[in-house]
Protein backbone atom coordinates (compact mmCIF):
# COMPACT_ATOMS: atom_id res chain seq x y z
CA UNK A 1 0.00 0.00 0.00
CA UNK A 2 1.18 3.53 -0.76
CA UNK A 3 0.01 6.54 1.22
CA UNK A 4 0.42 10.14 0.16
CA UNK A 5 -0.90 13.27 1.84
CA UNK A 6 -1.31 16.70 0.29
CA UNK A 7 -3.46 19.77 0.78
CA UNK A 8 -5.99 21.18 -1.63
CA UNK A 9 -9.01 23.43 -1.27
CA UNK A 10 -8.59 23.65 2.50
CA UNK A 11 -8.61 19.86 2.92
CA UNK A 12 -5.92 17.34 3.71
CA UNK A 13 -6.16 14.76 0.93
CA UNK A 14 -5.03 11.27 1.91
CA UNK A 15 -4.52 8.97 -1.06
CA UNK A 16 -4.46 5.25 -0.35
CA UNK A 17 -3.22 3.00 -3.15
CA UNK A 18 -2.96 -0.75 -3.52
CA UNK A 19 -4.10 -3.40 -1.04
CA UNK A 20 -5.24 -2.17 2.38
CA UNK A 21 -5.11 -5.15 4.71
CA UNK A 22 -3.98 -6.03 8.23
CA UNK A 23 -0.32 -5.68 7.23
CA UNK A 24 -0.71 -1.96 6.51
CA UNK A 25 -4.06 -0.76 7.89
CA UNK A 26 -2.37 0.41 11.16
CA UNK A 27 -0.30 2.77 8.99
CA UNK A 28 -3.43 4.04 7.22
CA UNK A 29 -5.13 4.52 10.59
CA UNK A 30 -2.14 6.52 11.86
CA UNK A 31 -2.30 8.90 8.89
CA UNK A 32 -6.09 9.32 9.11
CA UNK A 33 -6.11 10.03 12.84
CA UNK A 34 -2.92 12.12 12.63
CA UNK A 35 -4.49 14.53 10.14
CA UNK A 36 -7.64 14.83 12.24
CA UNK A 37 -5.61 15.44 15.41
CA UNK A 38 -4.08 18.42 13.63
CA UNK A 39 -7.61 19.75 13.12
CA UNK A 40 -7.62 19.23 9.35
CA UNK A 41 -10.74 18.52 7.32
CA UNK A 42 -9.97 15.24 5.58
CA UNK A 43 -10.79 13.61 2.26
CA UNK A 44 -9.67 10.01 1.80
CA UNK A 45 -9.10 9.15 -1.86
CA UNK A 46 -9.75 5.45 -2.45
CA UNK A 47 -9.55 5.51 -6.25
CA UNK A 48 -6.32 3.49 -6.25
CA UNK A 49 -7.40 0.88 -3.72
CA UNK A 50 -7.42 -2.60 -5.27
CA UNK A 51 -8.42 -4.42 -2.08
CA UNK A 52 -9.59 -3.45 1.39
CA UNK A 53 -10.47 -5.73 4.29
CA UNK A 54 -12.32 -5.13 7.56
CA UNK A 55 -9.20 -3.76 9.26
CA UNK A 56 -8.94 -1.05 6.58
CA UNK A 57 -12.65 -0.34 6.83
CA UNK A 58 -12.30 -0.05 10.62
CA UNK A 59 -9.69 2.71 10.15
CA UNK A 60 -12.14 4.63 7.96
CA UNK A 61 -14.95 4.21 10.50
CA UNK A 62 -12.68 5.41 13.30
CA UNK A 63 -11.68 8.43 11.21
CA UNK A 64 -15.29 9.25 10.41
CA UNK A 65 -16.28 9.05 14.07
CA UNK A 66 -13.30 11.15 15.23
CA UNK A 67 -14.03 13.81 12.63
CA UNK A 68 -17.65 13.95 13.70
CA UNK A 69 -16.64 14.39 17.35
CA UNK A 70 -14.28 17.22 16.44
CA UNK A 71 -16.77 18.77 14.00
CA UNK A 72 -14.33 18.34 11.12
CA UNK A 73 -15.29 17.49 7.55
CA UNK A 74 -14.59 13.91 6.47
CA UNK A 75 -15.46 12.14 3.24
CA UNK A 76 -14.39 9.36 0.91
CA UNK A 77 -13.72 10.32 -2.70
CA UNK A 78 -13.29 8.33 -5.92
CA UNK A 79 -14.03 5.02 -4.20
CA UNK A 80 -12.82 2.16 -6.44
CA UNK A 81 -15.27 -0.58 -7.41
CA UNK A 82 -13.41 -3.09 -5.29
CA UNK A 83 -13.55 -0.87 -2.18
CA UNK A 84 -17.19 0.05 -2.84
CA UNK A 85 -18.16 -3.64 -2.95
CA UNK A 86 -16.75 -4.05 0.57
CA UNK A 87 -18.40 -0.87 1.89
CA UNK A 88 -21.73 -2.07 0.48
CA UNK A 89 -21.33 -5.46 2.17
CA UNK A 90 -20.88 -3.60 5.47
CA UNK A 91 -23.79 -1.24 4.60
CA UNK A 92 -21.35 1.62 5.11
CA UNK A 93 -22.00 3.10 1.67
CA UNK A 94 -25.04 4.72 3.33
CA UNK A 95 -23.03 5.98 6.31
CA UNK A 96 -19.92 7.63 4.89
CA UNK A 97 -20.18 10.82 2.85
CA UNK A 98 -19.01 9.52 -0.55
CA UNK A 99 -18.17 11.57 -3.65
CA UNK A 100 -17.40 10.22 -7.10
CA UNK A 101 -14.30 12.40 -7.35
CA UNK A 102 -12.18 14.86 -5.42
CA UNK A 103 -13.31 17.60 -7.79
CA UNK A 104 -16.96 16.89 -6.99
CA UNK A 105 -16.31 17.35 -3.26
CA UNK A 106 -14.22 20.51 -3.75
CA UNK A 107 -16.91 22.05 -5.99
CA UNK A 108 -19.39 21.71 -3.12
CA UNK A 109 -17.51 24.34 -1.09
CA UNK A 110 -16.87 26.74 -3.96
Amino acid at each position, binding site marked *: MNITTREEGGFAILELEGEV*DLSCSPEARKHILGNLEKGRDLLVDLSGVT*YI*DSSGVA*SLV*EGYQNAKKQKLKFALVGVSESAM*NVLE*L*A*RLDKVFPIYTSLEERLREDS
Partner: protein
Amino acid sequence: MNEQHLVKMHFLSHPDRLCLIRVVVKRAAESMGCSEKLAEKMVLAVNEACMNIIQHAYKGDYSREIVLEILNNDNHIKFRITDHAEPVDLSCVKPRDLDDLRPGGLGTHFMQEIMDECAMGHLEGGRGNYIEMIKNINK
Protein backbone atom coordinates in the same frame (compact mmCIF):
# COMPACT_ATOMS: atom_id res chain seq x y z
CA MET B 1 -20.90 -35.98 -4.21
CA ASN B 2 -17.27 -36.64 -3.37
CA GLU B 3 -15.02 -33.69 -2.78
CA GLN B 4 -11.52 -33.39 -4.09
CA HIS B 5 -8.71 -31.51 -2.45
CA LEU B 6 -7.62 -28.58 -4.59
CA VAL B 7 -5.20 -27.07 -2.11
CA LYS B 8 -3.63 -27.74 1.26
CA MET B 9 -1.16 -25.08 2.31
CA HIS B 10 0.51 -24.04 5.53
CA PHE B 11 1.08 -20.34 6.19
CA LEU B 12 2.76 -18.38 8.94
CA SER B 13 0.20 -16.45 11.02
CA HIS B 14 1.71 -13.16 9.87
CA PRO B 15 -0.26 -10.29 8.29
CA ASP B 16 2.30 -10.21 5.46
CA ARG B 17 1.16 -13.69 4.41
CA LEU B 18 -2.45 -12.64 3.83
CA CYS B 19 -1.63 -11.46 0.31
CA LEU B 20 -0.37 -14.96 -0.57
CA ILE B 21 -3.53 -16.53 0.84
CA ARG B 22 -5.65 -14.16 -1.26
CA VAL B 23 -3.81 -15.10 -4.45
CA VAL B 24 -4.32 -18.82 -3.80
CA VAL B 25 -8.04 -18.41 -3.02
CA LYS B 26 -8.67 -16.24 -6.07
CA ARG B 27 -6.95 -18.64 -8.45
CA ALA B 28 -8.77 -21.63 -6.93
CA ALA B 29 -12.16 -19.91 -7.22
CA GLU B 30 -11.50 -18.85 -10.81
CA SER B 31 -10.39 -22.37 -11.71
CA MET B 32 -13.87 -23.49 -10.58
CA GLY B 33 -15.43 -21.08 -13.08
CA CYS B 34 -16.42 -18.41 -10.56
CA SER B 35 -16.77 -14.86 -11.86
CA GLU B 36 -14.12 -12.34 -10.81
CA LYS B 37 -16.64 -10.59 -8.55
CA LEU B 38 -17.61 -13.82 -6.77
CA ALA B 39 -13.96 -14.87 -6.49
CA GLU B 40 -13.13 -11.51 -4.89
CA LYS B 41 -15.91 -11.97 -2.35
CA MET B 42 -14.60 -15.40 -1.41
CA VAL B 43 -11.12 -13.91 -1.12
CA LEU B 44 -12.48 -11.38 1.37
CA ALA B 45 -14.24 -14.06 3.44
CA VAL B 46 -11.15 -16.27 3.68
CA ASN B 47 -8.93 -13.25 4.42
CA GLU B 48 -11.26 -12.29 7.29
CA ALA B 49 -11.19 -15.83 8.70
CA CYS B 50 -7.37 -15.84 8.65
CA MET B 51 -7.27 -12.36 10.16
CA ASN B 52 -9.53 -13.50 13.00
CA ILE B 53 -7.12 -16.35 13.67
CA ILE B 54 -4.11 -14.00 13.75
CA GLN B 55 -5.78 -11.38 15.94
CA HIS B 56 -8.01 -13.43 18.23
CA ALA B 57 -7.00 -17.11 18.26
CA TYR B 58 -3.24 -16.46 18.21
CA LYS B 59 -3.67 -13.07 19.95
CA GLY B 60 -1.21 -11.36 17.61
CA ASP B 61 1.48 -14.05 17.74
CA TYR B 62 2.82 -13.94 14.18
CA SER B 63 4.99 -17.05 14.51
CA ARG B 64 2.24 -19.68 14.50
CA GLU B 65 0.65 -21.70 11.70
CA ILE B 66 -2.52 -21.39 9.65
CA VAL B 67 -3.58 -24.32 7.44
CA LEU B 68 -5.74 -23.51 4.43
CA GLU B 69 -7.52 -26.32 2.63
CA ILE B 70 -9.71 -25.80 -0.43
CA LEU B 71 -11.96 -28.63 -1.53
CA ASN B 72 -14.51 -28.77 -4.28
CA ASN B 73 -17.08 -30.85 -6.08
CA ASP B 74 -19.43 -29.98 -8.95
CA ASN B 75 -21.74 -28.06 -6.64
CA HIS B 76 -19.62 -26.15 -4.21
CA ILE B 77 -16.25 -24.92 -3.08
CA LYS B 78 -15.27 -25.43 0.54
CA PHE B 79 -12.63 -23.55 2.55
CA ARG B 80 -11.35 -25.14 5.74
CA ILE B 81 -9.00 -23.02 7.81
CA THR B 82 -7.33 -24.49 10.85
CA ASP B 83 -5.19 -23.09 13.66
CA HIS B 84 -3.36 -24.64 16.59
CA ALA B 85 -4.37 -22.06 19.18
CA GLU B 86 -6.14 -22.61 22.48
CA PRO B 87 -9.83 -23.39 21.85
CA VAL B 88 -11.65 -20.09 21.37
CA ASP B 89 -14.95 -19.30 23.07
CA LEU B 90 -17.29 -19.80 20.11
CA SER B 91 -20.09 -17.84 21.80
CA CYS B 92 -17.93 -14.71 21.40
CA VAL B 93 -17.65 -15.17 17.62
CA LYS B 94 -20.67 -13.45 16.19
CA PRO B 95 -21.34 -10.67 13.68
CA ARG B 96 -22.01 -7.25 15.14
CA ASP B 97 -25.21 -5.33 14.62
CA LEU B 98 -24.49 -3.18 11.56
CA ASP B 99 -26.49 -0.31 13.05
CA ASP B 100 -23.98 -0.22 15.90
CA LEU B 101 -21.39 1.87 14.09
CA ARG B 102 -17.94 1.21 15.49
CA PRO B 103 -14.52 0.21 14.17
CA GLY B 104 -14.07 -3.56 14.01
CA GLY B 105 -16.37 -6.52 14.29
CA LEU B 106 -17.14 -6.79 10.58
CA GLY B 107 -15.12 -9.90 9.75
CA THR B 108 -17.69 -12.45 10.88
CA HIS B 109 -20.43 -10.48 9.14
CA PHE B 110 -18.49 -10.62 5.85
CA MET B 111 -17.92 -14.36 6.17
CA GLN B 112 -21.58 -15.12 6.86
CA GLU B 113 -22.87 -12.70 4.24
CA ILE B 114 -20.64 -14.03 1.46
CA MET B 115 -20.73 -17.76 2.14
CA ASP B 116 -23.72 -20.12 2.04
CA GLU B 117 -22.51 -22.06 5.06
CA CYS B 118 -20.11 -20.99 7.77
CA ALA B 119 -19.23 -23.18 10.75
CA MET B 120 -16.62 -22.96 13.47
CA GLY B 121 -15.47 -25.54 15.95
CA HIS B 122 -12.68 -27.03 18.01
CA LEU B 123 -10.26 -29.68 16.87
CA GLU B 124 -10.30 -32.90 18.85
CA GLY B 125 -8.27 -32.90 22.03
CA GLY B 126 -8.12 -29.11 22.26
CA ARG B 127 -5.49 -29.00 19.49
CA GLY B 128 -6.93 -25.89 17.88
CA ASN B 129 -9.89 -24.47 16.01
CA TYR B 130 -11.35 -24.68 12.53
CA ILE B 131 -13.53 -22.51 10.33
CA GLU B 132 -15.34 -24.21 7.47
CA MET B 133 -17.06 -22.12 4.81
CA ILE B 134 -18.98 -23.40 1.79
CA LYS B 135 -20.05 -21.48 -1.29
CA ASN B 136 -22.51 -23.12 -3.64
CA ILE B 137 -21.57 -22.72 -7.27
CA ASN B 138 -24.38 -22.51 -9.79
CA LYS B 139 -23.35 -24.14 -13.03
